[in-house]
């Protein structure tokens, strides 16, 4: 067969090659069968036996899993056992058998669907995912009722890439992780079981690949690229060669990076650069600390607002912010206030469709208009600031009036808390994102009112170059190495230094190893990036020498094109990489 590339969602990084092992559950049992009155008793004892076997099976799974997996995963499996003994589960099935003459299978399906449906209708995404647990318990019962054998994952004896519709917790615990090189599934999202399991075991995984079950045959050669979220079937020899090189490179670099992840980042000649993480949730926070984050340069608070029907109240937000503040202790966490609008839509906030959303009613513009929503968030952040080192950052500031208005709101929130006698960090710093060209041009004025700047390169690049990154016809113009963008960064840096305020960056550029010497040379003191980039970034910083970075930046500012700047940087990194 010829090479095919399947696109999905990469949920666990890494590249693996191997043979496909297609895992299908036993064929669907007949869940429509009815019984006769005189069979009811027999049907009920059949269900009882299935429950008994299912419970035994779970006990066996738990005993096996507790050796290889953590307590929290075992708890998920145990949860299924609780379902099986739940007064609202099997007793209801028996009732249906007795009163409506359902077969055991039909009764199991009916009751299971009912509860799974309730969970699926919930606004909390975590609870929605729990529908899978109930279905898993139901499927287990159906399997025991049919007595049919399905492929037993625990009997695998050679390393494979597992291809499945979806993996239930009971499937994943049966796996010998040494035999599973990677997962690819048709269903699932970032927070589904497969994804969480894959990440916790460090097994690369791609989920949500629509045609994978029909497209791939058992035993076919696969390459799974969790970084890109793709699965390549029957790869060409060149693709294989490419990926062998990538894997070898990945393996070698990982060893080096691991050494650097645990250390604070500083250049060869001792200049300190804070390598911080961009996070969106508590689990991101925990993950980033493990990967060497020295703080948080961007905590996106939008997740607190998502998957809900109404705006989160102060208490709900406070709990989340507080846990994250505690997680980082004395390390700074920069909390960005609600950055809604643009491509981030939250229906209940009522922003509505706009013809030009990136230039429209969004972020700080929305917050200054909807004062109650903004004040609620500011109070929640302030209260949480009593439990760690939080700073507040306003997104999309385009000029001094907006900054002054936002700061006035901050004072109002503080005053409200003082009246309530609730503690907060009185010395909390307020800074701004520099992501609009007007803000970059007026940085000297803004610097008088802001405690720090953080450059958001994604928006700054698209606004400066007037390029929509998502539009394939023009995205080739999108480049943060464009001298226009670099000059703006240079200008912001000058303004920050003159005012004596720290300057960071939290866009994609900050985590790009090629950009790092330039950014250090331009005088940035904090680089904030996805946790996965931290180790490599720290390693890159360690190779640099601050004086030559300064010279490099001076040259870059005078380059004519993005290409010229890239060449300059590549040359620099090659030279300094060899010295190490």
């Amino acid at each position: 067969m010829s090479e095919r590339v399947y696109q999905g969602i990469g949920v666990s990084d890494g590249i693996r090659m191997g043979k496909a092992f297609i895992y299908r559950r036993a064929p669907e049992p007949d869940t429509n069968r009815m019984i006769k009155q005189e069979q009811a008793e027999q049907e009920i004892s059949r269900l009882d036996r299935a429950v008994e076997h299912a419970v035994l099976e779970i006990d066996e799974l738990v005993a096996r899993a507790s050796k290889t997996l953590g307590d929290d995963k075992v708890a998920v499996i145990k949860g299924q056992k609780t379902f099986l003994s739940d007064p609202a589960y099997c007793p209801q099935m028996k009732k249906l058998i007795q009163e409506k003459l359902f077969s055991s299978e039909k009764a199991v399906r009916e009751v299971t669907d009912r509860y799974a449906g309730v969970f699926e209708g919930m606004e909390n995404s975590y609870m929605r995912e729990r529908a899978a647990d109930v279905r898993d318990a139901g499927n287990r019962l159906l399997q025991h009722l049919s007595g049919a054998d399905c492929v037993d994952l625990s009997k695998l004896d050679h390393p494979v890439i597992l291809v499945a519709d979806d993996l239930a917790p009971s499937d994943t615990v049966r796996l010998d992780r040494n035999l599973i090189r990677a997962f690819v599934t048709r269903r699932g999202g970032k927070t589904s079981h497969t994804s969480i399991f894959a990440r916790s075991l460090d097994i690369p995984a791609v989920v949500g690949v629509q045609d994978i079950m029909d497209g791939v045959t058992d035993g076919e050669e696969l390459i799974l690229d969790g970084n890109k979220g793709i699965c390549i079937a029957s790869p060409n020899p060149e693709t294989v060669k490419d990926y062998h090189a990538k894997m070898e490179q990945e393996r070698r670099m990982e060893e080096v990076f691991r050494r650097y992840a645990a250390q604070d980042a500083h250049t060869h000649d001792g200049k300190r650069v804070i390598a911080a993480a961009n996070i969106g949730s508590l689990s991101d926070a925990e993950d980033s600390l493990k990967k060497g984050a020295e703080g948080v340069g961007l905590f996106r608070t939008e997740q607190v607002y998502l998957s809900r029907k109404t705006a989160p109240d102060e208490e709900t937000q406070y709990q989340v912010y507080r846990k994250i503040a505690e997680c980082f202790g004395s390390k700074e966490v920069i909390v960005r206030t609600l950055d809604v609008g643009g491509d981030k839509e939250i229906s209940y906030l009522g922003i509505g469709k706009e013809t030009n959303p990136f230039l429209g009613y969004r972020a700080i513009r929305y917050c200054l208009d909807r004062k109650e929503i903004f004040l609620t968030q500011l109070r929640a952040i302030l209260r949480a600031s009593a439990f760690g080192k939080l700073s507040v950052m306003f997104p999309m500031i385009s000029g001094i009036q907006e900054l002054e208005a936002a700061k006035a709101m901050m004072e109002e929130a503080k005053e409200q808390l003082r009246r309530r006698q609730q503690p907060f960090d009185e010395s909390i710093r307020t800074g701004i994102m520099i992501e609009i060209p007007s803000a970059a041009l007026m940085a000297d004025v803004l610097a008088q009112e802001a405690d720090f700047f953080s450059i958001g390169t994604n928006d700054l690049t698209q606004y400066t170059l007037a390029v929509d990154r998502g539009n394939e016809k023009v995205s080739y113009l999108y480049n943060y190495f464009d001298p226009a963008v670099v000059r703006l960064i240079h200008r912001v840096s000058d303004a920050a230094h003159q005012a004596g305020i720290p300057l960071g960056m939290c866009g994609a550029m900050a985590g790009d190893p090629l950009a790092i010497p330039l950014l250090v040379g331009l005088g940035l003191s904090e680089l904030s990036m996805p946790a996965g980039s931290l180790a490599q970034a720290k390693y890159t910083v360690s190779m640099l020498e601050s004086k030559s970075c300064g010279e490099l930046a001076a040259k870059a500012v005078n380059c004519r094109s993005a290409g010229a700047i890239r060449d300059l940087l590549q040359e620099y990194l090659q030279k300094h990489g060899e010295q190490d």
Partner: protein
Amino acid sequence: MINKEFTIDGQYGFHLRPAQVMVEKMSPFTCDVKMKKEDGTEADAKSILGLMSLGLNNGQKVQMETNGADEKKAMATLEELFRTNFGE
């Protein structure tokens, strides 16, 4: 019959694990134990599916009701569970 109000405290709301702990601790009591939401829906606190079906989110208030011979002991256990946030 005893009634007391509590607040759900957890990133994921009242999810699988706390529900499991509650069922485990409440099942040995002979009294009826109910969890009631502010909107009036209620669930048997000895049923994990019932509890999870309430779909309680972080910060929501609930009424716990114990009714029967050992209702005092059951309520004391509930207070301890909420106080320790279900061991989370």
